[in-house]
């Protein structure tokens, strides 16, 4: 129940912050639009360019989402009060990570049709597989992002630290998501790049396992 309550609280806070949601949507849509213009009008490998654009936009916009989630916890001490309830730290983490995942998933739903239209790629037939790839990438993003956000909380240079920690860690997820999405859009299957699924699962599991081990320590290290 703790995780569900934290999830509901985070989603409510995001949903009420129209300015943040508009910034997030406009930033990511602009990225997709600018890159589609930069790659076009004659695309050499539209599936590759579209998937790279989609995932670059998602990963960069995701940092905005994580930073906002960090600010919500620290601006009036809500995160400190959350600790003082004595709630199970991993349940708190699970709720926050799920909220971050859902925010990124909503962004993916917004950006996917734009990328598909701008680059003229993809069919509805492979949509379920593309969604599974997105889930694999976004679970890892949320798992690691929530953990690193907790680590950066309370620091003056938290946005910088978050980016420095997050992007190198997530490179395997980004490459995997790009390769698998490209393969689905171009060839309709992932046969040639199937190993990336295993790599992405490993990164996801590692992120969650590390959080289960370290989240309480990180939370208690805040002063």
């Amino acid at each position, binding site marked *: *129940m*703790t995780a569900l*309550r*934290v999830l509901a*609280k985070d989603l*409510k*806070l995001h949903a*009420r*912050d129209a300015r943040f949601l508009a910034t997030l949507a406009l930033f990511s849509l602009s990225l997709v639009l600018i890159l589609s213009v930069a790659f076009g009008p004659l695309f050499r490998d539209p599936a590759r360019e579209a998937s790279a654009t989609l995932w670059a936009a998602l990963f960069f916009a995701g940092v905005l989402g994580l930073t906002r989630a960090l600010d*919500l916890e620290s*601006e*009036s*001490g*809500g995160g*400190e*009060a*959350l*600790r*003082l*309830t*004595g*709630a*199970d730290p991993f349940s708190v983490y699970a709720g926050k990570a799920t909220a971050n995942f859902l925010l990124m998933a909503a962004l993916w739903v917004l950006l996917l049709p734009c990328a598909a239209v701008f680059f003229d790629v993809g069919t509805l037939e492979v949509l379920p597989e593309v969604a599974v790839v997105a889930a694999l990438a976004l679970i890892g993003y949320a798992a690691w992002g929530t953990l690193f956000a907790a680590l950066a909380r309370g620091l003056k240079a938290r946005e910088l630290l978050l980016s420095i920690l997050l992007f190198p860690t997530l490179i395997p997820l980004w490459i995997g998501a790009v390769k698998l999405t490209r393969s689905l859009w171009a060839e309709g299957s992932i046969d040639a790049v199937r190993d990336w699924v295993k790599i992405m699962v490993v990164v996801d599991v590692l992120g969650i396992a590390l959080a289960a081990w370290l989240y309480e320590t990180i939370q*208690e290290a805040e*002063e």
Partner: protein
Amino acid sequence: MTLAARDIEKRFDRRAVLRKASLELHPGEIVFLSGPNGSGKTTFARILATTLAADAGTVTLDGRAVRSALTESRRAIGFAGHRPLLYLGLTPLENLEFFGKLAGVSDARARASRLLAGFGLEEFSGIPMEHFSRGMLQRVALSRALLPQPRVLILDEPYAGLDEQGADTLNTLLSEARSRGTAALLISHTRERIVPGIARSYALRNGVIEASA
């Protein structure tokens, strides 16, 4: 429950803020701690409330170190400090219900409604708090600390921002808590408006707690 702090030391960078500060809070008593600005009152309060770790010394609850049983300790201690410790994007009722349920209070919503009504915030209970005044936030913050009916209350400058009616409500609630056996530590730089019936008074000077008149 008896909360005891013994020989607490805390440094920030090279500056020693607390030097062997000790204090005991017994069930059903209200203790007052004063001290000038920058004397370390808030640091001491945060250490008692477990949001900050001491460099040396121990804080125990009925003889058991609070840091060795954080969940139980946190559920036994209610804390309100300088910051509201609330989510400003949520309404007062949503905040209190959220924190109350996480703290294991089954009738959190009903208790929250009663507390907000007592503090005169009934008509604001469904409005997100971004534009609340300092005094309104303080009332919600105190409600959050009082809602789980903790066995120990640590209130740092609890009267800050409160008008007469708010201060009276707080004093009434503190008297009720005392009659239930709750131990309370009221921390303030001034004794004005403090609840009558203070058991003992202390002052924090140069990082040490001394008995005070």
